């Protein structure tokens, strides 16, 4: 195998050269149901359509034709690249192409990539669902400033923790797992106060968009890889200009949570094209909704000025009540 992408909640994804894939096809029993092989070659067709495939030990093969995706076999090693951002497997998970393929593989176990934040604060595991620029980063920074532990501030994997609990056979409690080795915050007054002044972190600045990048130190307790989820917070968009002094909460319905879950994931996975995959993801979503309390939030400037008090109130509000 040329590269392996491992996760505690999704299946392992092996990226192989053609030779290794050929071996796996001749010896399918060598591959378990929780392992997928991802392989492919660059195709020089007239339209130069990039194409890749993956197959599972359980049999069957899914073909992906995705406009941005191409896998090159070069010098015996597989390299995943895309037209948008040249990405080599092993670097940060930022490629849409790779996400799509791993998402398809994981969904057989009911796990999927999610644009969300997750952390533990005041003994609760929180999953934060939000569109872009709704205040997710400020909440993540406030969670850290409140003494919490940050799993992910942007992209994560959501699914079942046990490798032996297949979705549908043994109900599980979904967990969130970090997929990146860094956190990144948009530069703003809020992040300056929380990240630089309050936490004293020393981020680097991304050359492309000036985002503040903090590398995860896996030896620190405040950066766990995985967290169970007890609460789901759905953020309503609030720009810095209109941010109120006080963070407000409201109750939200299970259907609103499902809407946010689908909105934050690869939406084509929830469509009629992949009924079995959708069924697996719906089981995970339903379990998540049944085993958590949820609310909607509009963030205020109190998160910046008194993060610990505000986060404590939010956790308590979601457990029952409201603020």
């Amino acid at each position, binding site marked *: 195998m040329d590269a392996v992408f491992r996760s505690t909640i999704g299946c392992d994804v092996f990226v192989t050269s053609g030779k290794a894939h050929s071996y796996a096809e001749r010896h399918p029993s060598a591959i378990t149901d929780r392992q997928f092989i991802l392989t492919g070659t660059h195709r020089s067709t007239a339209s130069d359509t990039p194409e890749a495939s993956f197959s599972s030990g359980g049999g069957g093969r899914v073909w992906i034709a995705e406009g941005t995706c191409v896998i090159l076999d070069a010098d015996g090693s597989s390299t995943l690249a895309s037209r948008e951002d040249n990405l080599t497997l092993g670097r940060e998970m930022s490629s849409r192409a790779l996400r799509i393929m791993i998402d398809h593989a994981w969904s057989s176990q009911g796990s999927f990539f999610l644009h969300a934040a997750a952390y533990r604060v005041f003994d609760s595991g929180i999953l934060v669902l939000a569109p872009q620029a709704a205040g997710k980063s400020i909440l993540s920074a406030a969670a850290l400033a409140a003494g919490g532990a940050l799993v992910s501030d942007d992209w994560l994997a959501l699914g079942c923790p046990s490798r032996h609990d297949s979705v549908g056979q043994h109900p599980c409690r979904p967990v969130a797992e970090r997929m990146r080795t860094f956190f990144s915050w948009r530069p703003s007054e809020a992040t300056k106060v929380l990240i630089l002044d309050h936490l004293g972190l020393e981020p680097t600045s991304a050359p492309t968009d000036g985002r503040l990048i903090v590398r995860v130190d896996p030896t620190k307790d405040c950066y766990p890889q995985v967290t169970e989820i007890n609460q789901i917070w759905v953020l309503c968009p609030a720009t810095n200009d209109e941010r109120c002094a006080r963070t407000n909460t409201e109750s939200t*319905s*299970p*259907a*609103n949570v*499902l*809407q946010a879950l*689908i*909105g934050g994931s690869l*939406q*084509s996975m*929830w*469509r*009629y094209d992949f009924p079995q995959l*959708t069924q697996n993801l*719906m089981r995970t*979503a*339903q379990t998540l*909704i*049944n085993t958590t309390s949820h609310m909607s939030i509009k963030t205020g400037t109190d998160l910046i000025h008194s993060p610990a008090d505000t986060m404590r109130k939010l956790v308590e509000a979601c457990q029952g009540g409201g603020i």
Partner: protein
Amino acid sequence: MIDNEKCAWILRDLLSTRRLTINQLDDGTGVALDMAGENILVLNEVAMRILAVFNEEATLDEAARAVSLEFDVDFERARMDICRFAEKLTNQIKMP
């Protein structure tokens, strides 16, 4: 408001052309995913039931009877609500 014939046609068409994918939760509510229009709509129990009935190619009167029985409203009110729902859906997902 759109007329009775048209609202039944709109709902049947949305389902038969697979413009919408419906994902249902245990409590009877759910969401409709409209990839073409990049919309994800939250649906209550009544809306989910209306779509389920039209998915079985029901007429407007058959759907109204089902809604009337299950949600304890009179037949005319159910018919009107179905057409209001069809109109709202049309506006939200920007039907051609």
